[in-house]
């Protein structure tokens, strides 16, 4: 069991996985978002090789309307 902070919420998952797998689980189109892992932006091409581990802090953001 791992516990991560995902967009400000504590979230539990049963096993370790990659960012790519996380986005797939959440049904998020990876081409429309950006991911920050523990304060560092992760380039899209590294999603499939970047592992998420216990206590990681993840932000998944996208563009919304703004001035």
């Amino acid at each position: 069991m791992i516990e991560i902070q995902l967009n400000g919420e504590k979230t539990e998952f049963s096993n370790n996985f990659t960012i790519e797998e996380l986005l797939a689980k959440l049904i998020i189109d990876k081409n429309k978002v950006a991911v920050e892992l523990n304060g560092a932006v992760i380039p899209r091409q590294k999603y499939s090789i970047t592992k998420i581990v216990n206590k990681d802090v993840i932000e998944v953001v996208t563009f919304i309307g703004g001035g």
Partner: protein
Amino acid sequence: MDQFKIGNRIFKSRLIVGTGKYKDLKETSDAVNSSGADLVTVAVRRVNIINAKEPMLMDFIDPKKITYLPNTAGCYTSDDALRTLRLAKESGGWNLVKLEVLGDENTLYPNMQETIKSAKILVKEGFEVMVYCSDDPIACRQLEDIGVVAVMPLGSLIGSGQGIPNKLNIEIIKRQSKIPVIVDAGIGTASDAVIAMELGCDGVLVNSAIAKAKNPILMAESMKNAVIAGRQSYLSGRMEKKNIAIASSPKQGKINI
């Protein structure tokens, strides 16, 4: 050819529109289309993890056709702004961004110290930075010296619709700047946009005046026309102002009764 060039990019429209405050994404998209803008500001926010299927801005406004200008709205520190724009760059894959670092929640006035600090770092990191700033000619010059691609002094407070009370400052900034000057914030109605353009500004950024109009789609078109009219008026060179009347019709040949 009167081109609107920011950095190395050429835009068709001198009107930049914000995509916030609309009723829904359909209205946002309709207003953008009606405005003729090919550059729109967008905010960077967390994805709704619980309902990731909810419609996204990109489903309504195609970033391949309309350039997204990610902003740092709501950022009060340099660190926050930098973090937001680094994420924006990865989301969209481009370098053109709008930096704004706010200093106060009631006025949303820019904190120029933090703004200048952030601009320096962003320029070093290869960003093309357009900067929301105070209408202070010195701050604008400092930003230009740093290497930002456009300065965007406020006409008046964000979302206030108070127009451009201090035209003199905007004029000074325009006169001294070699990079585009875009009036950002405060435009309330079409005549405000015309004034900005007649002052010689290179462009205008409008959000609330369109989104909060009773008919946003029609106001978007009005802003488009206002920016074109203002630009044409500026390029034409207005007539000299006089304190006496000068008749428009000739005296000669007038019939005698």
